[in-house]
C-alpha cells in the first residue's frame, strides 16, 4: 500500500515538473521569436537605406555629410553583436535618419517624387515595426523573467539552467525622434 502511494506522489511530481518545464520552453521560444522579429525589421532597414540614399542623391546635393554619417552608422549597427551594443548603434542610426527627415523638408521637388514617397513610407513603417517588435520583445522578456524568478517555477528553471534575458534598451533621445 505504502509503495503505491509513493509511486503516485512521484508521478504527480514528474507531471508537475514536465508541465512547468514546457511552459518555460514555450516562453523562451516566444522571447526568441520576438528577437528574430526585431532582427528581420532591422535588416529591412539596412536594405532600405541604400535605396533611399540612391533616390535622393540627385535632389540633395549639399547633404553629403548626413549621407556619410548614415552610411557609417548603418555599417556599425550591422556589425554590432551584443544586445546592448546593438541597442546603442540602432539608437544613433535612428537619430541620424531623423536629421535626414528634417533635411528633406528643404527639398520640395523630392516630396513630389512618387518613388521617394513610397520609400519614405516604407522607412517610416519599418521604424514603427522596429519599435513595435522591440515593445513585444520586452513584454515577452518580462513574462519569461518573471516566470523563472517566481516560486515554484524558479526551482525548475534552476534545475535546467534557464537564464534571465536582457531587455532591449534604447536611449531617451531616440524615443523622441521626429515622426514623418
Amino acid at each position, binding site marked *: 500500500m505504502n509503495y503505491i502511494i509513493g509511486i503516485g506522489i512521484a508521478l504527480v511530481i514528474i507531471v508537475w515538473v514536465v508541465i512547468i518545464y514546457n511552459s518555460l520552453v514555450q516562453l523562451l521560444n516566444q522571447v526568441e521569436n*520576438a528577437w528574430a522579429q526585431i532582427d528581420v525589421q532591422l535588416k529591412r532597414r539596412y536594405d532600405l537605406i541604400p535605396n533611399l540614399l540612391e533616390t535622393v542623391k540627385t535632389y540633395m546635393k549639399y547633404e553629403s555629410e548626413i549621407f556619410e554619417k548614415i552610411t557609417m552608422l548603418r555599417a556599425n549597427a550591422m556589425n554590432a553583436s551584443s544586445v546592448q551594443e546593438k541597442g546603442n548603434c540602432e539608437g544613433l542610426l535612428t537619430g541620424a535618419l531623423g536629421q535626414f527627415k528634417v533635411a528633406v523638408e528643404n527639398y520640395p521637388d523630392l516630396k513630389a517624387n512618387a518613388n521617394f514617397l513610397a520609400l519614405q513610407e516604407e522607412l517610416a*513603417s519599418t521604424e514603427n515595426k522596429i519599435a513595435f517588435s522591440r*515593445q*513585444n520583445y520586452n*513584454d515577452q522578456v518580462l513574462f519569461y523573467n518573471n516566470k523563472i524568478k517566481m516560486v515554484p517555477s524558479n526551482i525548475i528553471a534552476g534545475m535546467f539552467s534557464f537564464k534571465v534575458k536582457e531587455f532591449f534598451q534604447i536611449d531617451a533621445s531616440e524615443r523622441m525622434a521626429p515622426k514623418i
Partner: protein
Amino acid sequence: MWEIARKNSRKSMFLLIGMSIILIGFGFVIGMAVEPETGGIMGVIIATALYFILLLVAFTQGKSIMLHMSNAKEVSKSEYQQLYNIVEEMQIASGMAVMPKIYVIDDPAPNAFAAGMSPKNSVVAVTSGLLNMMNRDELQGVVAHEVSHIINRDVRYMTIATIMVASVALLSQFFLRSMFYGGGRSRSNSKGGGKGQIIILVVAVVFAILAPILIRLLYFALSRKREYLADASAARLTRFPLGLASALEKIGGSALDLSGANKTTAPMYIANPLKQKGRKLRNLSSTHPPLEDRIRILKAMGNEYSYANYQQAYSSVTNTKGNIIPSGALAENK
C-alpha cells in the same frame, strides 16, 4: 494582453453554457405548452438542433457571410501600401503569428470591422471613406482597435452571443405563430390538461415575449463592454491613444450610413454604421458606447497607454466604479 484573451475565452464558455441552458429551458417550456406529455423532450431536441446548426453555420461561414454582405474586396500591398504596412505593424505589436488578411469596402462612410474566429485566420476590413479621411496615426488607431478585437477573441465571443440572440428569437417567433394558427388543435387533444395546461401556456407565452428582449439587453451590454476593451487594447498597442481618439472624432463627424451593414452585422463595426437608428434609444439598446465617451476617455489618457491608465480615465469620464478591464490585465505593468 494575453491575460485578457484568456479571460475572454473563459467568459465565452460561460456564455455558451448559459445560452444552452436558456435555449433548452425555453425549448422545454414551449414543447410542454404544445404537447404536455411528450412535447417537452421534443422541444429540447428541436431547440438544441437549431442552436447547433446556427452555431456551425456561424463558425464555418461567419467570416465569408460578413465579407460578402459588406461587399469587401481583398487587397494587396502594391494597391494599399500604407494600410498594409499599418496592419503589419499592429500584427508585430500584438505578437500575432499570422498577419490578418486585408479587405477594403468601397463606401464613402468611414468604418471598419474585424472577422475570423481565431487569430490565425482573421480579417481586417476598412472602407475607402475611412482611408480617404484618416491620417497615418488615426488609421493606425482604427486598425489597432480591430486587431484588438481579434486578439481579445471578441469576434468569437460576439458570434456566440449573436447566435444566442438569433436562436431565441427564432424559437419565440415560431412558437407565437404556431399558437396563433394551431393552438386550438393541440389544446382539444389533451383533455386531461385542464388548469395546469393553461398555466403552462401562459408561462410559455410570457417566456416567448420576454426572453428575446432580455437576451438582447444582455447582448448589447456585452457588446459595449467589448468596444471599450478594444479601445483600451488599441491604446496599449499603439502607445498613442490620441490617434484613435482623433479617428473616432472624424467617424462621429460623418453623417453617412454604410450601405452594406444591417442590424445583425452592426455590432461588428468600430462605430455604429446605422447612425439614424442608433441615435434614438441611446443607452440600453445601442451596441456601441457613445462615441463622445470613448473619445473623452482616450483623450484623458494623454500620453499614457497602459490598461490601468485606461481604467482610470474610464472611471473619471463615466463616473462609475466598476472595472471595464479584467483585473488580471490591470495588474500587469505596461
